[in-house]
């Protein structure tokens, strides 16, 4: 016995597309319905876990929230006033900026240097690439714990320095070196990612450009700045965006290495937010700091997007 559907479909095998099941459920309509159904989980998730929390965080930032007393009072802009007058905030923002700038410069420079070295025709570059990439897969906290040991006063780094007669500082506990240490630990952890992206970009640069430049007598250094850098500028932009946005989210490294210290010298915005909200239970103020973090990420993304027009040489 054949169902109406099969009757419907049978002739369709010889012609395309299949005729509609009914006048309303045309192929196109069914297709559209499938489209909506397929994006529904993502869309619902976006609304529940991104959009609603984003609205709520703004709402919370206008409230004084005392968890112990169970009060939740509307205070309007008070938290923003507190933000403006917070004596810790300038230090926190400076630490955040210092971390981001230091990380981006060191990370991109090292990644580009390594990528250029590994892009030479040499044996063993795959092995090197793997080794430079390997910290990426070591669990972040495990990596940070090892470095915490290496950087402590009687740790491995100072042991090495000692053997060449240098008295190393207490890296994580002195104001001048704590931030540098946090940056360096993060750089070695993640350079491998940018390195891989740069390598892929370098391999996409047409070789005849270099050949022509060599014929013209351009030095390697000149070739690098006049050919390589412009040709891979989209990748430089992409990696810098990823690195900057990632740098604003740093938390575990700070929590494990320095707990924001010494003083407030490594208290970056996310760490400060965590302290205010979850250690001091200042949820309203924590929400205000979240809004600030969001605005900074937003502003940076817009700025970098604008920069694209200025200095990205070509886009694929």
């Amino acid at each position: 016995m054949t169902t109406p559907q099969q009757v419907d479909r049978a002739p369709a095998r010889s012609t395309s597309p299949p005729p509609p099941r009914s006048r309303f459920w045309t192929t196109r309509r069914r297709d559209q319905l499938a489209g909506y159904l397929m994006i529904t989980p993502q869309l619902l998730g976006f609304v529940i876990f991104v959009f609603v929390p984003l609205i709520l965080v703004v709402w919370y930032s206008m409230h004084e929230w005392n968890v112990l007393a169970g009060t939740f009072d509307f205070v309007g802009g008070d938290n923003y006033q507190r933000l403006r007058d917070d004596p810790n905030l300038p230090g926190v923002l400076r630490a955040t900026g210092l971390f981001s700038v230091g990380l981006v410069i060191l990370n991109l420079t090292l990644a580009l240097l390594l990528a250029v070295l590994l892009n030479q025709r040499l044996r063993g570059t795959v092995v090197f690439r793997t080794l430079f990439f390997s910290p990426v897969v070591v669990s972040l906290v495990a990596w940070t714990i090892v470095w915490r040991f290496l950087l402590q006063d009687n740790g491995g780094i100072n042991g090495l320095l000692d053997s060449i007669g240098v008295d190393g500082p207490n890296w994580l506990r002195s104001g001048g070196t704590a931030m540098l240490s946090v940056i360096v630990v993060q750089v070695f952890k993640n350079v491998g990612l940018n390195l891989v992206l740069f390598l892929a970009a370098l391999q996409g640069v047409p070789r005849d450009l270099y050949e022509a430049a060599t014929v013209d007598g351009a030095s390697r250094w000149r070739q690098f700045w006049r050919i390589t850098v412009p040709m891979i500028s989209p990748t430089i932009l992409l990696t810098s965006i990823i690195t900057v946005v990632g740098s604003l989210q740093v938390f575990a490294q700070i929590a494990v290495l320095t707990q924001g210290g010494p003083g407030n010298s490594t208290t970056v915005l996310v760490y400060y937010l965590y302290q205010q909200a979850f250690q001091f239970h200042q949820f309203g103020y924590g929400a205000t700091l979240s809004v600030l973090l969001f605005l900074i990420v937003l502003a940076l993304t817009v700025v970098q997007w604008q920069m694209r027009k200025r200095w990205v040489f070509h886009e694929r």
Partner: protein
Amino acid sequence: MNDKLSPRAKLAVYALLLVLMIPFVFPTWWMVTSSFKPIGEIFSYPPSLLPTSPQLDAYPQVFEMQPFLRQYFNSAYIALLVTAGTLGISSLAGYAFARIRFPGANLLFLVVLTGLLVPSEVTIVPLFQMFNRLGMIDTHWPLILVPIFGAPSVLATFIMRQFFLALPGELEEAARVDGLGRFAIYWRIALPLARPALGAVAIFTFLHSWNLYLEPIVFLSTPSNFTLPQALTLFVDAYGGPMWNVQLAAASMTAIPVLIVFVLAQRQFIEGLSHTGLKG
């Protein structure tokens, strides 16, 4: 930049690479080897590259001090669930956005993409309150639901869409002639072809979940519910000082499974990431 180097230049490049490699390789090496050293040798100057008298003392202590096996299991099952869930959600949405024309598709895609602008740290306070209301604090639900449905999966959807955009249209037309509907085309044609993209998404999703630190310490409070990164920092003595050999043994154990997978699937790992151009 690619032409042949002189032997001298080659030597210089090798030397430079070897020196630069030290801070990338030594910490991991040191972490694993030190976990076999007695505590005194960990602090010896100069640091020994291999334990002089290897011992396993630190390893049983890892399991005595904390419910480490349980924590290991927590991290593993959460990461696996998140990976599977993300693959499902993002491949469905990515496919629809890439291959199906429906009114509002572009606008909705843009809306979802704005999720990339919202770091999870920004929404952690309201998310904490939301899960608190639902009685889900100190459960694994927040660590599973938020990554699968929230901002991290937006990235995955973006990658999947990029991949599906490049699929040849003839394949789908042929499937359609054979009478397949949209879901069947997605499931039987597009998804099997998307293996490289799925692999890349799986890798970075798993790593992301495996490394989560802020979320667990915010949402979890009972040690038997902890995940590995959270547990690692808690191997401390009575005075709160870290017990280095135990901490390093535990750290080694968390790093080893991923390192093994990495060594086995090194090509797909690196190439997958370079194709997607994304951070884990």
